[in-house]
């Protein structure tokens, strides 16, 4: 026999269930643009900036979906499209220059012209990486190493690729998997650009003892880094500025090996098959507007694509701008990247 108290618990549970159901079934009204992007675009606040600017310009809403990093999201977009037979998003924000190959191979994006996105006229040619003009660049930056200055004194930090091989850095570097992360891939490409196709594998062989671990994403690497698991990781040249401005701390220092960094550029595009092309074009234009671009520095912690965008002096002073950033030609990368990664996997991960 159930006692009265048990009935009460059951009723409370049922009521809770019904409340949840009703709370959940509230659906959105009006025209909404679905945008796939990477999680830090949302968690660090850029998404809100864009959504507000978009709302005031068009009256429409944006629904962001951002559950992991940029490459995983691009893959997810493609997988979902192939499985469902329709575009799950209208706009994609965050194709890294080295993922151009994937985007092209799976024919993800619509073609664009300057008429569609008037603000594109203000973007320097050198970062317009897509020769087919499907992806527009909205921010860029430099991949470097960073280090924790409380556990690694600046005078002890390596200055060159060669010094990085020193046994005193044994298990001191958090690397990121080039198969799953664009940051990891950028570092790999940097070593290829530095040592050439014939030499980069040798370098990695020697580097291997100094790697603590290889994470699947920048996020998990940064997590280990901030929990103090290792003093060095692959990251961005803006991280010192971030640490200083956000945490008021001097802990994270940028380590531009040989004064260089590897260029990374992020682009956005309109997903083929969208039913809201006009709105999507408006969004891309807003993304490049000075108003939105000026927020890139301190929300995305990247360099805005639009050179007219303003940023704080403090920010500019603490970002490391490499003297001569390295980069391989996008078309070159497209052709060889699979082979390079395979070689890397076989060398670094196979034993």
């Amino acid at each position, binding site marked *: 026999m159930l006692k009265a108290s048990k009935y009460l618990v059951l009723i409370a549970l049922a009521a809770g269930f019904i409340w949840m159901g009703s709370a959940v079934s509230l659906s959105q009204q009006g025209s909404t643009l679905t945008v796939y992007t990477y999680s830090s675009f949302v968690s660090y606040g850029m998404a809100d900036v864009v959504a507000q600017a978009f709302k005031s310009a068009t009256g429409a809403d944006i629904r962001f979906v951002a559950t992991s990093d940029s490459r995983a999201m691009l893959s997810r977009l493609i997988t979902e499209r192939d499985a469902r037979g329709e575009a799950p998003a209208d706009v994609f924000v965050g194709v890294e220059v080295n993922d151009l190959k994937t985007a092209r191979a799976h024919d993800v994006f619509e073609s664009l012209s300057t008429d569609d996105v008037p603000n594109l006229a203000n973007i320097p040619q050198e970062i317009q990486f897509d020769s087919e003009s499907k992806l527009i660049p909205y921010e860029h930056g430099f991949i470097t190493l960073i280090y924790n200055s409380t556990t690694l004194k600046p005078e002890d930090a390596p200055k060159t690729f060669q010094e990085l091989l020193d046994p005193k850095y044994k298990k001191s570097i958090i690397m990121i998997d080039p198969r799953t992360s664009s940051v990891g891939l950028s570092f790999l490409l940097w070593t290829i650009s530095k040592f050439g196709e014939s030499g980069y594998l040798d370098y990695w062989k020697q580097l291997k003892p100094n790697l603590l671990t290889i994470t*699947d994403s920048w996020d998990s690497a940064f997590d280990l880094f901030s*929990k103090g698991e290792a003093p060095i990781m692959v990251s961005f040249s803006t991280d010192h500025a971030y640490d200083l401005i956000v945490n008021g701390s001097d802990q994270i220092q940028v380590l531009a090996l040989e004064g260089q960094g590897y260029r990374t550029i992020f682009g956005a595009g309109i997903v083929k098959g969208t039913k809201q092309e006009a709105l999507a074009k408006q969004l891309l234009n807003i993304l490049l507007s000075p108003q939105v671009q000026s927020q890139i520095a301190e929300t995305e912690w990247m360099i805005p694509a639009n050179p007219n965008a303003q940023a704080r002096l403090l920010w500019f002073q603490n970002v490391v701008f490499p003297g001569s950033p390295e980069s391989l030609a996008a078309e070159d990368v497209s052709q060889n990247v699979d082979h390079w990664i395979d070689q890397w996997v076989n060398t670094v*991960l196979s034993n």
Partner: protein
Amino acid sequence: MGKHGAQQLILSVQLYSQRLKVGRVILIALPLLFLGAFFYLPLFQLLVRGLSSSAGLSLERLSALLSNSYLQHVLLFTLGQAILSMLGSVILCFGLAYFLSHYEFPGRPLLKALTLVPFALPPVAVALGFLLVFGRSGALNQTLMGLFGLHEPPIQILYSISGIVLAHAFYNAPIVARFVTAAWERLPMRYEESARALGAPRWRIFLNITLPMLMPGLISGAMLAFIYSFLSFPIVLAVGGAQFSTIEVEIYRRALIQIDIAGASALATIALIFSLLFTALYLWGERYYAHRLRATPTRQRTPLFADVKSALSPRRWPLYLLIFVTLFFFLAPLVGVFVDSITRQSGDHTMLTLDWYGQLFNPSYSALISASPLHSVWNSLLFALATMCLSLSFGTILSIILSRPRLRGRIGLEAIAMAPLAASPVALGLALLWSSAQTPFQSAWLAIVIAHSVLAIPFVIRALRPAFSQFDLRLYEAARSLGASQIRSVLDIVLPLIRGSLVAGAAFAFAISIAEMSATIMLVQPETLTMPVSVYYLLSSRQFGAASAMSVLMMLVLAFSFVLIERFSEKRFQFS
């Protein structure tokens, strides 16, 4: 009798076959059709995808994969770590099993139930717990370094195979312990007592008497531990790092990140071959060690705290040490996650907060998980209920068939029904994703419920089969001869009497559905987000507090269902 009799005979035979056979055949066919349509067919399609090339079906891709040195490495590593993890689980389980089967103390049933919680915990949360406790700057190392003034963290287990093995042991030792505890509880004292009377020292008794008699439970548990470690997916990535890759990780990466569908299918084919092999091994092992101990009255447990003197006696100290180490190992990561869920880092200060739980019950949309957190809680509960109903009905039918005393082809049927136990969930998710794209049932929530049910059916069968095999069929027959139809007899007599096992099976199905992530993540869409997947999403966007809070909520739901299992499995009707 003549012509009339012959006609009557034919008539009654027809009647008989119509009424008995047709209904029964449909009933038996339903669960098999279900498994066929949603397990075997999709996996077969996957196989075809993996094997087909421009020149039709060939083994070309498979042999290319198998001759790739990296994949050979992955395969060997997967096997090696699974064997080590199995051994680790077996060793670690003994402390727990000995303690639970030999000592009586307040809260014992609760502890027994809680030890099952890790088993169903999302791997990402476990990895987080491990990092918080065992990491280079985790709680344990910090404490030890503070205590002994060390400069280097003394415990370095993460980012290595030992970390992976330890994490797998954390997962699987409780399952092994569960099997061993059950065997130990039923092990009659008289064997050990007569060996002692013959003058055997304690360790000889353990090796010669106790261990062999625990073998059936130990083997079943160890095989499960092996299978789960073999199929382990995010734990390897999170605890070991991307330099340690198992087949499952490789399938996931190829399918969802590199969009190499053909490669992923071929790998999944390899994984499937292993799965079938393991299922066969598992069933064989169970059969081989099936010399079941007669159910004897449960062994008398020693009260842990009978009186102050015996509780404080130095002879107890090794036991206390064992309990402490075991409990620390199993509970610390859970506590780590819990602490993480109620604290917030603000500069150098750590503050208590309930904000993360507030976020959990927030019905507004969050882009980071592509739904509202509350929505994922609601979805998980709904899916778990649906999974429970579906897998319980199919599992019950299959258990009844499998426990029939005279059944031809039992081994085959058993293998067919139990195969999902060892099937790669990632491959299953992938297969269901494609097959659902082709079939009219495009609904993502149905696909998820189906995937969960397929994975839960073996567990339901595990829970129900002993009850059906031990069920006194004469009770059912007595009801029939008293005029009750088949269905009435089952409802009036059979179901009430196996209620305990039914609840256990239901709770297992529920827990599996709540915790399943590997297959779900392949099928999930924003509207069908579940709790573990949102934990995964939250962690991958570094929302640790919210992820921990969601994990704690999952632990509570799981603990609740395991307490249910515990309550009902001990209160079973005794059959003389």
